[in-house]
C-alpha cells in the first residue's frame, strides 16, 4: 500500500531462530502498530509505537519485542521463533493521532507471511 511497506513478504524459519520483520512508512506518522492475523482469531495487536523509542504492549506481546529508532521504521523481532508464531503479520499506521481527531482509519501494509518449521 502507498506509504507503507513491509519486508520480507514471505519467510520460512526454523524453531528457535531469531526473526526480524520490518515496517517502513513514508507518511511521517507518529503511531505505528503490529498485528498478527490467524484464522478464527482475526487481527490481534502485538505492540504499538507512539513515537521514536516510545512503544507499548498489545494483547499478544509475549515472545515479541519491537524497536523504533527512526520515525519511518518499526521493527518486530521474534527472539526465538516458535511454531505458534506462524502467522501473517501486518503493520499499520494511523493519521488520526497526528491530527488529534479520529477521522481516519489505519493504513495497512501488505503483510508478511511467516512460517516457523
Amino acid at each position, binding site marked *: *500500500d502507498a506509504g507503507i511497506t513491509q519486508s520480507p513478504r514471505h519467510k520460512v524459519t526454523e524453531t528457535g531462530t531469531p526473526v526480524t520483520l520490518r515496517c517502513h512508512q513514508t507518511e511521517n506518522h507518529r*503511531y505505528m*502498530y503490529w*498485528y498478527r492475523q490467524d484464522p*478464527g*482469531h*482475526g*487481527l*490481534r*495487536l502485538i505492540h*504499538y509505537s*507512539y513515537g521514536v523509542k516510545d512503544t*507499548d504492549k*498489545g*494483547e499478544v506481546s509475549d515472545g515479541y519485542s519491537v524497536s523504533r529508532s527512526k520515525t519511518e521504521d518499526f521493527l518486530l523481532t521474534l527472539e526465538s521463533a516458535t511454531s505458534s508464531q506462524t502467522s501473517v503479520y*501486518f503493520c*499499520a499506521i*494511523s493519521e*488520526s*493521532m497526528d491530527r488529534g481527531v*479520529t*477521522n*481516519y*482509519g*489505519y*493504513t*495497512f*501494509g*501488505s*503483510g508478511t507471511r511467516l512460517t516457523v518449521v
Partner: protein
Amino acid sequence: SQKIEQNSEALNIQEGKTATLTCNYTNYSPAYLQWYRQDPGRGPVFLLLIRENEKEKRKERLKVTFDTTLKQSLFHITASQPADSATYLCALDYGGGNKLTFGTGTQLKVEL
C-alpha cells in the same frame, strides 16, 4: 474482556441486491467503530468510521449504522457487484492511542 462477533459464515447474495453485515460487541461501547475490506493476500483497507454519537454514516454505496443500545453496527452495500466480494472486518476504537480491536470478519460473495 471485550468480545466482537461477526458472522463467521459467508454471506452469498445476488448482484444488485443489498448486502447487510453485522457486528455485535459486548461490554461498553467504543468511542468509534470502523469497517475495513480485506481481499485475499492483502492488508485490510479502511472504508468508513462512525462515532458513538452518530446513528448513520454513508459513503457512495456504503452505509453504516451504530446502535449503542443494541451494541451493534450494521454495514450495508447497496446495488452490490461481484467486485464487492471480499472479507469485511469491523473494528472498535476505545481511544487511548487509537488501538483497534478487530472482529474476525465476514466473507461476502456477490454472484452474477
